């Protein structure tokens, strides 16, 4: 960790601080309810260039270009969005060795109310494993900063992407209002 202060109380503050500490200046997202506090905080902080795009693979293209231009970038999406990016991973990010930092808000488990989300989640980890992409499911606030900081540094060092799956155990998830 750098000498920058990383707040440890709330997950989205820890994510933002860890990105900043690792000089990740670009954040591109397709919106997600659970990620909203993080997205709002990234927008509010002038350190970051943060904006929405229209598809998750578009976001991967943008951060790939930014990396090649010398700027580190993160992509934010939800589980269903992950299902749209295997081609961009397999034919751009992985063969070109781009350390894309991919945050996925985990839908489809621990109280999911949408069958489609539950089904698509079942594809995510098998796809990541098939592509041999490093991924970490983060469930605990006290492990969040360590996992993010070490894994971002590893991704940059070995020039490989990494996926952070943010569990409802960490974020609270999206509640089903019956």
């Amino acid at each position: 960790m750098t000498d920058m202060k990383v707040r440890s109380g709330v997950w989205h503050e820890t994510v933002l601080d860890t990105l900043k500490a690792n000089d990740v200046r670009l954040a591109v997202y397709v919106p997600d309810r659970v990620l909203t506090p993080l997205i709002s905080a990234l927008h509010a902080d002038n350190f970051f260039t943060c904006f929405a795009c229209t598809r998750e693979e578009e976001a991967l293209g943008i951060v790939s270009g930014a990396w090649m231009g010398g700027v580190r970038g993160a992509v934010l999406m939800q589980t269903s969005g992950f299902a749209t990016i295997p081609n961009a991973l397999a034919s751009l990010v992985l063969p070109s060795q781009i350390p894309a930092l991919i945050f996925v808000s985990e839908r489809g488990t621990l109280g999911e109310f949408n069958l489609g989300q539950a089904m698509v989640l079942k594809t995510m980890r098998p796809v990541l494993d098939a592509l041999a992409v490093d991924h970490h499911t983060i469930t605990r606030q006290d492990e969040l900063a360590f996992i993010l900081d070490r894994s971002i540094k590893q991704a940059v060092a070995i020039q490989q992407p990494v996926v952070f799956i943010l569990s409802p155990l960490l974020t609270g998830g999206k509640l089903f209002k019956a």
Partner: protein
Amino acid sequence: MISMTRPSAHNAKVMNRFVLTQRLVAQLKHEEAVIGGIGNANFDLWSSGQRPQNFYMLGSMGLAVPIALGVAIAQPQRHVVALEGDGSLLMQLGCLATVAVRAPKNLTIVVWDNGIYQITGGQETASAGTADLVAIAAGAGIGKSAWAADEDEFDRLFAAALRDGGPSLIAARIDDKPGVGTTDRDPVQIRARFMQGLGVRR
């Protein structure tokens, strides 16, 4: 904007992609970055003279514009050009709206429109008869979007895009001639050379 002073797709001259690519590259004097979209856009860029500031896509169809946008954000002092085919752009039309919102002055999009998925067997694209990619770009909010009526106007539009800033989109109707040559297929080497060309790596 589309205006009476600009030709529509229907009265623009049918030109040749390799000829236009060479004319485009000849205008690059300031180490501008060029992202070559997958397929023939890429092959003709490669054959027009390999520059360290060229990135040749070997996959991820549709992502030439997003990659170029990322480079443009990372290096705002460098002009960035995306070369994309009609089929590829149709796959990722949302990126035009993203570019319009971000409005990078240092980004130019060039679309080669032959109305076919040339490399897969010549199947017609939607732009063959109905979809107008310049109108789509203008509708997405890229005000400086225009068809090039002929080679000379292509040169003028591209010179203006480099000089005046964008974002801008230039579309050219092209023939169905295949690309000239093929890129080396070494993604790591392509990426590493590109980063050296951009001054990011030694």
